């Protein structure tokens, strides 16, 4: 039995409701006991300097917003990549953003104190973020340039170049693991598993702004992506400038995922399943898939982080463990239900 396909508007309203629900659940849960009444008072504008309110405003709230931005960025980027590659296995990691960011983060963690000892003093914890951001963009640019041919960007070539470059980056990270001290090794490991624990207002504002721009920009490319779904040649016949679409998709993805990954480490799985999920429920129109994937991604990250913060309190679990742990089985259930549409 297959459930009826949802109308676009219904699907997006449902997505928004999910995000709000996850946000509220996230706001109400955490290691530090904050009474719901206190939360409501804050919502009503009654901000006082109680410890509970300080914890909420300085630690929990920026974290929730970072969760929204991270999930939305990863979701929308995943939808762009799957649309561009016309491949259901595509995710933002494919064009090297995650591996480039991870390699750069590894270099800073392991070699940072030897190679540029002055940097942490001036940039503090921004060093790692900036390096990861630059690393992600750099590797993506490398793959994009490699795939340039006489007839423009060769998508198949980009895919294969991505596989190769990702392997090289993984090998580089493996070498860094080898020369790392125990502490550095643990730092790399935790970075690779992702966490929203580093949420500060300054960083959150930056990432949220970048993701907001990326999401808005992505929506403008929904129709051309729909045309590309028919094939590049057909899209060109329909008057779509395919080269521009490719470039835009790569740039938007690199910026959004680069910013998110630099702040949170690698959060796996969200970019891969969020778009699929939306397609299963509401069909393949990118005008629904792009915003839908952003909403679903945000809800998924918020929910996973609420569990990460509470299940082992006062400690916290790595986020990447939970996005897959929660998202995987839920996705399997979805697949079962919508089996005929896959």
């Amino acid at each position, binding site marked *: 039995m297959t459930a009826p396909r949802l109308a676009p508007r219904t699907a997006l309203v449902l997505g928004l409701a999910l995000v709000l629900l996850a946000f509220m659940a996230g706001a109400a849960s*955490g*290691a*530090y*006991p904050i009474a719901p009444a206190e939360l409501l008072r804050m919502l009503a504008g009654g901000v006082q300097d109680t*410890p509970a309110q*300080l*914890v909420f405003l*300085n*630690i*929990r709230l920026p974290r929730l917003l970072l969760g929204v931005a991270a999930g939305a960025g990863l979701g929308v980027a995943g939808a762009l990549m799957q649309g561009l590659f016309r491949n259901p296995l595509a995710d933002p990691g494919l064009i090297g953003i995650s591996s480039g960011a991870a390699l750069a983060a590894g270099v800073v963690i392991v070699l940072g104190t030897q190679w540029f000892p002055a940097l942490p003093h001036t940039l*503090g*914890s921004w060093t790692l973020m900036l390096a990861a951001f630059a690393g992600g963009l750099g590797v993506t640019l490398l793959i994009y340039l490699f795939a340039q041919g006489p007839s423009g960007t060769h998508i198949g070539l980009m895919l294969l170049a991505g596989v190769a470059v990702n392997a090289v980056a993984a090998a580089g990270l493996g070498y860094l693991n*080898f020369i*790392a*001290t*125990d*502490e550095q090794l*643990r*730092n790399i490991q*935790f970075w690779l598993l992702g*966490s929203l*624990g*580093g949420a*500060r207002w300054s960083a959150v504002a930056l990432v949220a702004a970048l993701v907001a721009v990326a999401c808005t920009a992505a929506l403008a490319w929904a129709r051309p992506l729909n045309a590309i779904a028919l094939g590049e040649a057909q899209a060109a016949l329909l008057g779509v400038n395919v080269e521009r679409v490719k470039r835009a998709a790569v740039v938007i993805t690199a910026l959004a995922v680069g910013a998110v990954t630099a702040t949170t480490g690698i959060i796996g799985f969200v970019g891969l399943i969020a778009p699929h999920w939306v397609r299963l429920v509401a069909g393949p129109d990118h005008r629904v898939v792009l915003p839908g994937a952003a909403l679903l991604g945000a809800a998924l990250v918020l929910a996973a982080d609420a569990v990460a*913060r509470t299940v*082992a*309190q*006062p*400690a*916290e679990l*790595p986020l990447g463990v939970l996005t897959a742990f929660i998202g995987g089985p839920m996705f399997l259930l979805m697949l079962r239900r919508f089996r005929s549409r896959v």
Partner: protein
Amino acid sequence: MHYSTTRRTVLAATLGAPLAAWAQQQPKPPRLVTISGAITEVVYALGAEAQLVGTDTTSLYPAAALKTPKVGYMRQLSAEGVLSLQPDAVIATTEAGPPVVLDQLRSAGVKVELVKSEYTWEDVRAKVQAVGRAAGREAAARELQARLDAEWAQVGQQVAAAKGPKPRVLFILSHGPAPQVAGQGTAADALIRFAGGVNAMGGFTNYRPMTAEAMASAAPDVILTTDQGIEALGGVEKFWQRPELALTPAYRRRAVVSLDALLLLGFGPRMPQAVREVHQRLHSS
């Protein structure tokens, strides 16, 4: 008896004011969260465990420390998690992190005491002082430090008085596909030196996986390892069956010294005990 309202107020004031003043002079002892097994041990050595509201996952000794709320691994602390224990002070080594979380704790008004790890006796003293300061038990800390200093000096004399050549010692941290051994700049390297041995591995820092050939050419007289490492292999019998050990001088004499990992490498208040034990077993095996 019947008091007028004013008289009752006056009475309350005369009784209440000194009480309030007394309460201010005797503030509640600070609540502590410790991040490092050795620092947690110091809290217990000072008898301040009633003030301990949370520890990290490396705090495994004494057994009571296992029952305290666990704030996770020292490098991956959660700001909200630590704050939920409402500590007045967090005492940690400089390895604790991430830095953003430490900043968040500071800005929430928690005193964050960080102790450097340089693998010297000074480490132990710094930990005792930091706990004494944070716990409001300076006098007890001075007393403990004097006792430990005396014990340390005694162990030092014992080691210095040992005769014969210094044994070559190889520390094995863990046996994966290749055994991880200790180079320079490690807690194990320092401990071997304090106990009157020579690290059989030179030429690199930190822990590295080692080939069987490199282990043979290092020619250790004794293998030093942790109880946990031997347990993970399934006992001493299984330990000596590891192929990479077969070509070492230590293998011929089955010379292995193993101690609990935290006792051996923690650089806590039990360090004189650890050094004495390793020294004695090095020279009897």
